[in-house]
């Protein structure tokens, strides 16, 4: 397995693009080479010079975000990255990783220009890019990579540390990870699902300590830390020596505005340029407002309906026809249009389409007539009382719409919305019965998602099927990518055919951008909710 460096070269000054942007010459008769003409050319030359310097390493202007969630200092330190997507909002600016998702590349070489795995899958070696610097001027070395891995204590640090026998640094540009036993998901965890592959400067961290680092973080990302006012804002400034390319925008400001109506008001007034998380009617208003642009991003959060009692022979859900009837009763498109303006992706899988080993199932269909027929064949011509429908309060609107659809074919259930913490506690402790509206935005690949929600002993699996468990064990020991992929595809097909889940959607996260924004970075990286990569952002006039 080898990753190659296909990094983009720094975007330099392009005369053709400048000429397209210059003010039109006033039309008139033939122009002689007089003083006015010379002055005009001089002015043009100066303008070209100024523009060129801006593009080639003199970032300008400011972009301001209205952020929906309180920024935490722990997000400044990759070592403390929790298993949620939000800290990456800051990590992509301040820090850089050995490899990370980039536009068009699920895992683009970044600080590492390449990597390779040994035949026995026990050794992974990364070659670092030459001459890459941290904000304080120190070069990124193999020691920094080793140090960042060892001090990592965020999500999934235990399986990661437990399976690595040693980290070797034969020279400043080579890092070698030796595993205790073959682990096909090493890269998924190390450079995908955790913050362990995001590199911090060893000497600086040792000098200032963990708390000092959170107060004045230093990384190798496109933006340098300027200030952080807890509960208010984070200010960053362009790092013009960023290896990939110098950022176009000089200053980034992230303002915390928890209320979404206020965020939209701030965008309308031009107090902020980009806002995150605007839902429902407010998103429609954003879309209607002149000068504002709705920027939906389909993220890696899939939603589904789980038949918790399907392993109980006395339950109606034990009958596969009943589960299929429920799936056919759901009018996905109408729900999508009503709740997320049609931007969510209708999916037939609990696995996001950007995950490794994803198998594309047939699209779900809406056929209430067929649903009623299946129910009648299963012995429920008049429907049945399905008990309770548990959901996270934050997505009770999706649950209400789904429940209405189910009731239309005769599946009657009572909605039980629970506050998020209580909901996921009950879900994980297997305390619910009947119907559960589940969701997951966890990082990983198809195997990790199946492990949690389908395989025997999975944290959120209320039961399992022996044939699936056998296949799952096979893929876990398989080192050949193609064979493993085939097995994982087979599992997903069985999950689909058996209607273990009725699928709802892959959620669209709705954001907005104002008139000062050129490139917002929203939606550039597939399945990523926020603006990135920051070095690609531009103002409208750039």
């Amino acid at each position, binding site marked *: 397995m080898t990753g190659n460096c296909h990094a983009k070269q720094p975007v330099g000054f392009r005369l053709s693009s400048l000429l397209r942007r210059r003010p039109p010459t006033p039309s008139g008769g033939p122009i002689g080479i007089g003083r006015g003409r010379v002055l005009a050319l001089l002015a043009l030359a100066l303008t070209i010079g100024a523009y060129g310097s801006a593009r080639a390493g003199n970032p300008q202007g400011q972009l301001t975000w209205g952020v929906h969630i309180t920024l935490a200092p722990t997000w400044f330190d990759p070592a403390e990255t929790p*298993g949620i997507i939000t800290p990456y909002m800051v990590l992509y600016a301040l820090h850089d990783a050995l490899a990370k998702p980039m536009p068009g590349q699920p895992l683009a070489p970044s600080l590492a220009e390449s990597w390779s795995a040994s035949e026995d899958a026990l050794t992974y070696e990364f070659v670092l890019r030459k001459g890459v610097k941290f904000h304080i001027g120190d070069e990124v070395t193999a020691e920094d990579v080793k140090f960042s891995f060892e001090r990592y204590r965020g999500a999934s640090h*235990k399986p990661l540390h437990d399976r690595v026998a040693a980290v070797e640094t034969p020279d400043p540009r080579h890092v070698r990870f030796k595993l205790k036993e073959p682990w096909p998901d090493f890269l998924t965890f190390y450079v995908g699902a955790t913050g362990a592959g995001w590199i911090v400067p060893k000497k600086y961290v040792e000098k200032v300590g963990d708390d000092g680092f959170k107060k004045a973080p230093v990384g190798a990302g496109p933006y340098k830390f300027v200030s952080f006012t807890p509960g208010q804002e984070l200010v960053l400034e362009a790092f013009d020596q960023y290896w990939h390319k110098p950022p176009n925008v000089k200053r980034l400001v992230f303002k915390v505005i928890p209320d979404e109506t206020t965020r939209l008001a701030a965008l309308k007034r031009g107090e902020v340029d980009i806002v995150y998380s605007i839902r429902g009617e407010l998103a429609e208003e954003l879309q209607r407002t002149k000068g504002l642009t709705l920027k939906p991003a389909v993220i890696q959060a899939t939603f589904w309906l789980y038949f918790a009692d399907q392993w109980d022979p006395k339950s109606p859900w034990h009958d596969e026809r009943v589960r299929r009837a429920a799936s056919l009763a759901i009018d996905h498109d109408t729900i999508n249009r009503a709740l997320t303006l049609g931007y969510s992706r209708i999916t037939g899988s609990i696995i996001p389409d950007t995950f490794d080993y994803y198998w594309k199932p047939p699209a779900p269909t809406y056929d209430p007539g067929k649903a009623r027929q299946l129910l009648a064949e299963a012995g429920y011509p008049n429907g049945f009382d399905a008990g309770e429908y548990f959901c996270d309060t934050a997505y009770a609107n999706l649950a209400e719409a789904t429940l209405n659809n189910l009731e239309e074919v005769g599946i009657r259930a009572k909605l039980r919305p629970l506050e*998020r913490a209580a909901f996921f506690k009950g879900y994980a402790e297997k305390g619910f019965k009947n119907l559960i509206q589940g969701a997951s935005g966890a990082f990983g690949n198809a195997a990790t998602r199946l492990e949690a929600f389908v395989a025997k002993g999975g944290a959120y699996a209320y039961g399992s099927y022996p044939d699936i468990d056998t296949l799952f064990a096979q893929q876990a020991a398989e080192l050949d990518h193609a064979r493993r992929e085939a097995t994982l595809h087979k599992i997903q097909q069985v999950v689909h055919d058996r209607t273990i889940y009725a699928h709802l959607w892959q959620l669209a996260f709705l954001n907005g951008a104002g008139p000062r924004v050129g490139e917002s970075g929203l939606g550039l990286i597939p399945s990523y909710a926020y603006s990135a990569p920051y070095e690609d952002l531009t103002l409208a006039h750039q």
Partner: protein
Amino acid sequence: MTRFITRRLAYSLLSLFLLSLTIFLFVRLTGDPAVLFVEPGASQSDLEAIRQQFGLDQPVGVQYVSFIASLVQGDFGQSFYYRTPVFELYLSRLPNSLLLATAAMAFSLLIGIPSGILAAVRVGRFWDSAGKVFALLGLSLPSFWVGLVLILFFSVYLGWLPSSGSGTAAHLVMPAFALGWYFAAAHMRLTRSSMLEVLGSEYIKLARLKGLPESLVIAKHAFKNALIPVLTLAGINLVIMINVAVVVETVFAWPGIGRLLYEGITFRDFPVVQGVVLMGGGMIVVVNLVIDILYGVIDPRIRLEA
């Protein structure tokens, strides 16, 4: 007197102990914070690692003893979300809350007291009715709704004021109004009833019989006496404004203690919720203790009854 103060002090400490126990137990009934620090579907080992990191893997009794042991040393614990000492967080937000509460209090007194006096001296007439409507709206309209209407009108429609945040006097206007209206209404009603009571008293009648001008009777004799209960209420209200302006601070993204409490509740950040509630409760207990002692000093009968 020493015995009286000792007993009051003991009651105050008991109140704080009960408050600490109540908030400690109740906040733990609201759910598991670990699930909010991972995406749904995270592994059990991740959840357990978070619980261990936060000390939530210990029995509740052990957690409480540890919490109290730290508390007596002035340590409110470390925020789960910020990984910063709670007391440090509280102090960083306190100036913003003090500023907002002071502005809201000034607004509530400047509007509430004159309108209360006007309503009392013009009972049953236009100003009295107008004051009643003002008070009714102030007490019944939810502050989040008032806040959003203000933002839509003054920020989006007129473009006069910034919609949210802090830093300038302009940022303070709308949150101070949204927070102060409720309290202005309460102060107006109390001023009115207090003034009506005083205006009906014998010494006011005597002042009028002596031929004093009505303005002098109201300003010098009635107003001063009617003001005492209003100011007592204002003192307590100020503590409430500092600590529980949760909705207004959230709507206007005002970085005060109310929003810190909101964040604490949102993320099940137990140490933050415990710290903010205890600090707020502590302030009220101290204010009441001081008032009790002052009453005891002023009126010996209270000392003896106690």
